[in-house]
C-alpha cells in the first residue's frame, strides 16, 4: 500500500478518536517535534498524538494502518542517531503521557512501568527501597524508559552491569496489525520459545510500539570507591585497561579522556589537570567494602606498573565526586568550543582500543578536523567527538568522509558502528557493511515480516518492504547532541 500524508480529515478523525487535547497539529507545534537529540536533522510531522493508554495506542495504530499513514514513535526525543526524527507530514506518536510506575515488586526485584516513565525516576524509585537500576545513559534525567529500551541505551556502567537489554524481563508491545503482545515475565529462568522481547530491545520503533516494561533490579551496592590515573602516553592507558581486565577485575566504571579532551576539560572546569598528559583514566569500583578496597589497591598497582605518572585514590565521596567531574565535564567542555558538536560512538573489542584511538587521531590530522576522544574504555565504547560547524559545508563534507573512515576502521577491527546510540538514520548506510550479506538479509526479513506495510518508523535502521515515495530521504549533516547555537 502506498503511504499517504496526513490530511486535515485525518487530524479531525484522530482528534475524535483520542480527544482534542491529545492531538497537536499547528505549525508552531510541529516545528519543535521536528527533531530529536540529533540536531542538523529535521523533518516536520503533520500531527503529534499523545495516547494515554495501550488501548489508545492500538486505536492510533489501527487507524494509521487503515489509512496507510506512517508512525514515528517518540519519548522525550533525546536520541542521538535520528531515530525519532519524524516522517515528513506523518504522525508522531508521543508516549510521554503514559508515565506511571505500575508496580515495584521487592520480592521479585522487579519494577513494572509504563513506557513514558523517565529513566531517572526508575533509578530513584529503586534506590528508595535499597535497589539499583544500573543503566545510566547521559540523558537519564530526560529520557524515557521506552526510548531506552527501543535504543538499548548504555551508560557509564556497561563494563560491569551491561546495558538496558540486560534489565528487560518483559515487554508489552503493540504490533503493526494492532494486536497487543506480552513478551517475557518475572521468571529469572525462562526458555519457552524464541526470546521475542529481545527482538524489540534496540528495534528503534521499527517493529512495534513498546507500551509497558518489566524491569529487573539489583541490590544497591554497599560501597564504592574512585580513582584516577594519569598517563603520558595513550597506549600505556590502553594497556592498563587490558591488564585490569586480564587480572579478572571488573570495575563498574572505567572511563578515558584523550589529550585534547583533558585540555578542554581543564579550561572549562579549572580542575588543575596535567595538561601535557596523553590520557587520563577514571575508575570506580563498587560492591562489598572489602572487595572494593582490594580491587582499588590492585588497580592502583597495575596502573603504576603500566607507566602511570600519577595515581590518585579518592579519600572520601567528596574527592570521588571531583575525580568523576573530570569525566562528566568532558562533553560540556568540548561542546563549547565550536557551534556543532557531533558525538559518535564507534566501539571496538577492548584489545583494539589503542589502535582505534590512534586511528581517530590520525584521521583528525588527515582531514584537518578537531576531534577529541573520550568514553567508556572498559567496554570499548569510544566517543570520538567532532567539533565543527554544521553551516560550514566544506568542513561538513570532510566530517562525513572522516566519519566513514572511522566507521570502516571500527568494523575492520571487529567492532561496531554504534555502541549505544543506535542506527536510526545517522548510521543506516553503514549497517549493511557491518552485518554482511546473510545477517543483513535476516534483519531485512524480520522487518518485512513484522511490519509488512512499513508503517512503523519507516526509513530508519533498515528500509522496509515499501519505501515511501512521499518521504524524501533525510540528509545527514551529522549528529549533534545539542542544537547548534544560533548566535
Amino acid at each position, binding site marked *: 500500500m502506498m503511504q499517504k500524508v496526513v490530511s486535515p480529515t485525518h487530524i479531525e478523525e484522530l482528534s475524535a478518536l483520542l480527544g482534542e487535547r491529545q492531538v497537536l497539529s499547528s505549525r508552531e507545534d510541529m*516545528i519543535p517535534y521536528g527533531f530529536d537529540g540529533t540536531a542538523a536533522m529535521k523533518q516536520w510531522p503533520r500531527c503529534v498524538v499523545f495516547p494515554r493508554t495501550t488501548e489508545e495506542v492500538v486505536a492510533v495504530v489501527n487507524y494509521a494502518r487503515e489509512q496507510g499513514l506512517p508512525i514515528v514513535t517518540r519519548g522525550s526525543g533525546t536520541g542521538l542517531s535520528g531515530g525519532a526524527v519524524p516522517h515528513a507530514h506523518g504522525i508522531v506518536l508521543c508516549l510521554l503521557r503514559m508515565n506511571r510506575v505500575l508496580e515495584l515488586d521487592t520480592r521479585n526485584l522487579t519494577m513494572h512501568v509504563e513506557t513514558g516513565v523517565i529513566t531517572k525516576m526508575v533509578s530513584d524509585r529503586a534506590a528508595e527501597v535499597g535497589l539499583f537500576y544500573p543503566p545510566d545513559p547521559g540523558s537519564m534525567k530526560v529520557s524515557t524508559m521506552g526510548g531506552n529500551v527501543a535504543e538499548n541505551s548504555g551508560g557509564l556502567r556497561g563494563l560491569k552491569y551491561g546495558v538496558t537489554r540486560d534489565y528487560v524481563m518483559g515487554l508489552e508491545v503493540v504490533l503493526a496489525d494492532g494486536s497487543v503482545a506480552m513478551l517475557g515475565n518475572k521468571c529469572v529462568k525462562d526458555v519457552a520459545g524464541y526470546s521475542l522481547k529481545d527482538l524489540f530491545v534496540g528495534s528503534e520503533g521499527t517493529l512495534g510500539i513498546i507500551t509497558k516494561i518489566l524491569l529487573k533490579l539489583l541490590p544497591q551496592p554497599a560501597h564504592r570507591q574512585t580513582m584516577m590515573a594519569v598517563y603520558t602516553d595513550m597506549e600505556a592507558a590502553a594497556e592498563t585497561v587490558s591488564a585490569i581486565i586480564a587480572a579478572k577485575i571488573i570495575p563498574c566504571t572505567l572511563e578515558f579522556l584523550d589529550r585534547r579532551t583533558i585540555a578542554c576539560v581543564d579550561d572549562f572546569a579549572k580542575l588543575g589537570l596535567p595538561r601535557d598528559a596523553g590520557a587520563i583514566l577514571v575508575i570506580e569500583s563498587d560492591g562489598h567494602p572489602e572487595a572494593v578496597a582490594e580491587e582499588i589497591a590492585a588497580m592502583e598497582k597495575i596502573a603504576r606498573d603500566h607507566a602511570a605518572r600519577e595515581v590518585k585514590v579518592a579519600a572520601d565521596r567528596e574527592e570521588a565526586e571531583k575525580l568523576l567531574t573530570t569525566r562528566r565535564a568532558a562533553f560540556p567542555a568540548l561542546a563549547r568550543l565550536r557551534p556543532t558538536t557531533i558525538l559518535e560512538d564507534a566501539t571496538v573489542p577492548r584489545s583494539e582500543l589503542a589502535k582505534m584511538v590512534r586511528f581517530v587521531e590520525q584521521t583528525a590530522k588527515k582531514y584537518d578536523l578537531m576531534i577529541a576522544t573520550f568514553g567508556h574504555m572498559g567496554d570499548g565504547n569510544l566517543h570520538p567527538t567532532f567539533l565543527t560547524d554544521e553551516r560550514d559545508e566544506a568542513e561538513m563534507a570532510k566530517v562525513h568522509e572522516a566519519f566513514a573512515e572511522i566507521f570502516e576502521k571500527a568494523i575492520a577491527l571487529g567492532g561496531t558502528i554504534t555502541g549505544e546510540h543506535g542506527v536510526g538514520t545517522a548510521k543506516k548506510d553503514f549497517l549493511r557493511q557491518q552485518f554482511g550479506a546473510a545477517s543483513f538479509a535476516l534483519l531485512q526479513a524480520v522487518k518485512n515480516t513484522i511490519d509488512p506495510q512499513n508503517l512503523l518508523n519507516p526509513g530508519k535502521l533498515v528500509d522496509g518492504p515499501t519505501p515511501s515515495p512521499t518521504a524524501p530521504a533525510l540528509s545527514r549533516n551529522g549528529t549533534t547532541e545539542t542544537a547548534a547555537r544560533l548566535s
Partner: protein
Amino acid sequence: MCLPTCPTYDETGLERNSPRGRIGLMRAIADGELEATKAFAEEMGYCLGCLACVTACPAGVDYAHLFENARAEAQASGVQDSGKRRFYRWLTLRFLFMRPRVLRWVGWGLRLWQRTGLEQLFRRSGGTKLLPPELRRLEPMTPRVEEKFTHRRIRPLETPADLMTRLGRPREQAPPTRGRVALLTGCVQDLFFSGVNRDTADVLLANGWEVLTPSVQYCCGSLHGHNGELEMAKELACQQLDTFPLDELAAVVTNAAGCGSHLKHYDRLLGADSAYQQRAQRWSQIARDIHEFLDEQGLVSPQDYRVTAGRTESSHATATTRVAYHEACHLVHGQGISDPPRKVLEAIPGLHLVALEEASWCCGSAGVYSITQPEQAQKLLDRKVRHIRAARPAVLATANPGCHLQIERGLRESGLNLKVMHPVSLLARSYRGESLI
C-alpha cells in the same frame, strides 16, 4: 538536559513550551521557515525567562540573548498589537520607566493614596468594581509604597565613618576605607524597598567602602530589555553610563537580581555604539551583584564589626532564627550566583539557614509575568509556598524585588505568618546590632 528544569514544560509536557522547542521556533524564523506569528509571540510570552535552562545546558547555549531578541522580534512584528496593549506598554515602558522623576511622583501619589485612607475607602465603597477587569484583578495586589524613597534615606556620598556616627560611635573607629563603589537604587526597589537600599549601603559601609548613590537614577533598562524594547534599553543604558563616574569606582553594585542580569551586559547591548562602547565595557567589568561583590572582596564578619562598633552587648538575640533562601532566577540562572548569598546568610550569627526544596525553581514573578500570565504564575507561586511551608522558616530571604512581592503575597494569602527579607537586610541588621526580625 534543559527539559526537566523548565517550569512551563514541567506544566504541559509539550515541546513548544520547552527551551529547546522555543529555540527550534526561533531558528525556524531565522531560517525563514516560519513567520513571527501570534502563536510564536504568545509562546515567547509564556516563557518565564527564568533561564533555568541556561544553568542546565551542557553546551552553554546563550538562551537569555536568544530570548531577548525573540521577544523583540515578536514585539516588532506587531502580531499581538491592540490598542489596550499599546497603551499599557506606552504607559509603563515608555512613559513611567523612562522618567525617574515621574516614577517617583507616581510613587508619591500612590503613597498618599494608601496612607490617607483613600485606598481603604475606595475598596470599601466598591470602587474597584468600576475598574476595567484586568485592573480589578491587580488592584488588591498593589504593594505598599515605602515611607521614604532612597534619596531621602541615603546621602549621595557616605563614608564608613558616617555609619559609625549613626551608630553613635566615634568616627575614628571606622574601618579603613577600601575604595569607592556606586549603589544602584533600582525602580521597584526604590519605590517599595528603599529600606533594602539603605541596608545595602550600610553593608557596604561596614565593609569599608565609600558609597556613591546619585539621588536621581534612571531605570537600568532590564524591564525594557526583557520585554522586547531593545532600543529603549539602549537609551537607558547610556543615561546610566552618563550618571556614574566609572573611573573612580571599584564597582557598581546592585541588590536586585533582575537588574543585575541585565546591566552586566551593557557591553553587548552597546557594542555597536561608538560613543558609549568603551564606557559600556568598563561598566560590564565592574558591575556586581552585592553578594557576589562581598564574596569576592571578603566579608567583614558581623562579630568583628560589632566589636569595632561597640555593639557586642546589643539586643542581638542568642536564639536562632530559621531562614530559608529562595534563589531569584536572575541571580542563580541569569548570573550564575548561587553560593554567595548563602555565604552571606551563613555568616550572620544567630541565623540558621534551612534547606528549601526547589529553591532555584521560579516563583512565578518573572518580571511582569505575574501580570501577563496570572494563571501559570499562580501555579508556580502555590508550589513555592508549599515548599516554604514545609521548610518552616521564620524568614524567607530572597534578593529580588519581584520575587519579594510575589512570595510575600503568596504567604499572606496562605495565612503563613513569616517575613520576606533581602539577605542583605539581615546582614545589615546584624552589623548594626539589631535583632534579625
